[in-house]
């Protein structure tokens, strides 16, 4: 019998054969059931639980809510400045009665070059029971969780994920398209198309949303120029499509999520902003013509006159401030889940 490889001739394309290479080991993350590193760590049941708790906590008497995490210690570790996310998490934790402490990139240990691992271990030794991390490097939350084994809430890691943003976006979408719904399933958003427009390449908000929304039945259309949206983004998961024309994307959409251009991450990339605005700015005229009933979202901070006009940002279809409100409710639920002692807390 001739072994298969002896059949190899001089052709430039090698003969395909079944190779069975070493398998990829299953991910050990999250180590702590209270962590929220990625939207992919959440079952739909856990998503339902977080959404339901967000509503409960929002409606609760503040004096009762105040006792839920009374004196529990939550550290906010912020390597990037972020008024919105930091304040939102801080308000959420404090509304539940927790003590919060902020460590920012201006803190002395970080300035002196202490590693993330060492900073995390120090916070744990100081008594932190959970860490909320915002970091400029993709994957930082995984490093911190592995090192500390504490519940780690990923408040944005580099260009990778921002899971609480996707959850608050989901809450906003459901309020508009599926009001009154109690639990989410794989069909909840069937028939819904969400367009995410702009700087997809550098966006953790885009990644978390494109991985979460299709699991509830939505279709995600990514829209932007090829410098900011590589073709292979469509392979990131199921039900993700790439569309270069904003008009074509808008026509299909019930939800339009506009993203900011992350100038700080362009890394020498040349981008013609006038050209960009001409093709991708969400204007009142485009919105009226192509998606007159779509909900307009934006994770902030918004740059009026760049990715969208002031008129659209403040217009009737805009849910941008609702998103901010939903952020506090969602973050109360995930902070509570992080410190839930019964190990349930909507995890798994």
């Amino acid at each position, binding site marked *: 019998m001739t072994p298969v490889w002896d059949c190899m001739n001089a052709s430039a394309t*090698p003969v395909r054969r079944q190779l069975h*290479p070493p398998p990829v080991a299953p991910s050990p993350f999250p180590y702590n059931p209270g962590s929220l590193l990625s939207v992919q760590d959440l079952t739909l049941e856990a998503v339902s639980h977080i959404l339901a708790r967000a509503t409960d906590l929002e409606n609760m008497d503040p004096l009762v809510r105040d006792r839920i995490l009374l004196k529990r210690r939550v550290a906010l570790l912020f390597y990037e400045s972020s008024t919105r996310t930091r304040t939102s998490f801080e308000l959420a934790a404090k509304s539940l009665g927790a003590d919060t402490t902020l460590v920012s990139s201006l803190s002395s240990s970080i300035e002196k070059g202490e590693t993330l691992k060492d900073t995390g271990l120090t916070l744990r030794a100081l008594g932190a029971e959970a860490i909320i991390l915002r970091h400029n490097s*993709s*994957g930082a939350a995984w*490093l911190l969780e592995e090192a500390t084994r504490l519940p780690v809430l990923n408040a944005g890691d580099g260009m990778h994920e921002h899971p609480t943003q996707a959850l608050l976006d989901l809450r906003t979408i459901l309020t508009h398209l599926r009001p009154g719904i109690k639990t989410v399933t794989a069909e909840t958003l069937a028939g819904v198309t969400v367009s995410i427009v702009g700087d997809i*390449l550098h966006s953790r908000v885009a990644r978390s949303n494109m991985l979460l929304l299709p699991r509830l039945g939505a279709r995600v259309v990514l829209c932007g120029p090829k410098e900011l949206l590589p073709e*292979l*983004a469509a*392979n990131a998961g199921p039900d993700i499509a790439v569309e270069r024309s904003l008009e074509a994307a808008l026509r299909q959409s019930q939800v339009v999520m506009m993203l900011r251009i992350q100038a700080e991450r362009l890394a020498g990339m040349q981008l013609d902003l006038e050209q960009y605005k001409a093709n991708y700015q969400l204007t009142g005229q485009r919105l009226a013509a192509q998606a007159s009933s779509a909900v307009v979202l934006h994770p902030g901070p918004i740059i009026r006159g760049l990715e969208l006009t002031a008129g659209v940002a403040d217009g009737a279809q805009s849910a941008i401030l609702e998103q901010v409100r939903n952020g506090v409710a969602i973050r109360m639920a995930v902070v509570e889940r992080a410190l839930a002692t019964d190990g349930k807390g909507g995890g798994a």
Partner: protein
Amino acid sequence: MTALVIRGGHLIDPAAGVDGPKDILLKDGRVAEIASPGKLKLQNGVNTDETATLDATGLTVAPGLIDMHVHLREPGQGYKETIATGTAAAAAGGFTAVAAMPNTIPVNDSPEITRWMQAPERGAAVRVFPIAAATRGSKGEALNDFAALKSAGAVAVTDDGHPILKDGVMRETLAAAARVGLSVIQHAEDTRMTQGACMNLGAVSFKLGLRGMPPEAESGLVERDIRLVTELRDARAHLHVAHTSTAAAIAAVRQARRNGLRVTCEVAPHHFLLSDEHVGMYNTQAKMNPPLRSAADRDAMIEAILDGVVDAIATDHAPHATHEKEVEFENAPNGITGLETALGLCLRWLHREWKLPLGRILSLLSAQPAALLNLKGRGTLAVGSFADVVVFDPKAEWTYHAVDTLSKARNTPFDGWTMQGKIRWTISEGRIAYKSS
């Protein structure tokens, strides 16, 4: 005088065309006699009372392995690895010779450093053959004195880690190296295309939000180098492509060979076993340069090894201190260790899984790298050769535990993996350099 007899083993010496039961006599650092079992004559004043005997019954005896691409970190970074610890790990992995890359501190671009690395004071367990920098400080501008480096013991030139981008400098390097009979080893990476990148460019890097190195950064430079070798055809320039990782680069090498050019390549075990999916959730033990590529590229490495385009398997052993790898993925240094796992992985996967004959594997790990680096008297156990021998149990399965390493470093993605083929003895020039406990 010292003598050593290895009895009862099965000798596989592809370069000599031997594959059968043989007894071997090693004397004064050389192979003195090879005979059928029980038939050694032990002449020339070998005193049987003073001759140690190794019982190799059931074991394979082969020429010591040769790794043509390792980073021993000395001079300059002894906290990561020293020549002593790196070669101890080499011996544990069955290697009797390693070629040490010049990206030390300072860069090995001088005969003095080349000699320093080979000095007995370094305490090497096996032979170290320095590969010297092609250009001053590996800056890709001014060529070093290749004749002087060669007479100091350098076996090739390279600017590994700092690819030579300028066409003119690379052409001069190839021509000058050919004049003194040295190979030029290129780390093929067009660094203009890989700024800020820390893994392979593809769907996985997109998902992880990491900047990626396009495969063309490798294959483009290989194609450029092959063009230069073509222009220098009459000069008999030899280009060796280090740690080849992409299907396109392999295709370019395949075509160059078909055109009769002196172009060779090596592949590292991680590039024929792992793909960018193995980066998992930012595992820095899966970060190296060139990076783990797509599954299709990985499969192309396996194909290329099986069909003979690949000339050598080299580990690119790149030790780092533990704390250096416990950082954000994009900030972690490139590289993984490889000396102790190479044979075990090759036997487990190339041999057992993909049915590559044992002789071919040993050739890729010994005879062929010896030929590429022109190491006379190595890579074979023909009578008169250096007594560089590895004796191993080809069937034994075992688990690799990084904590047990003889290297200073534990940065391996293969911790806990099942290996096949257990080293019993590694003999370097007649001396036992490693013995399993």
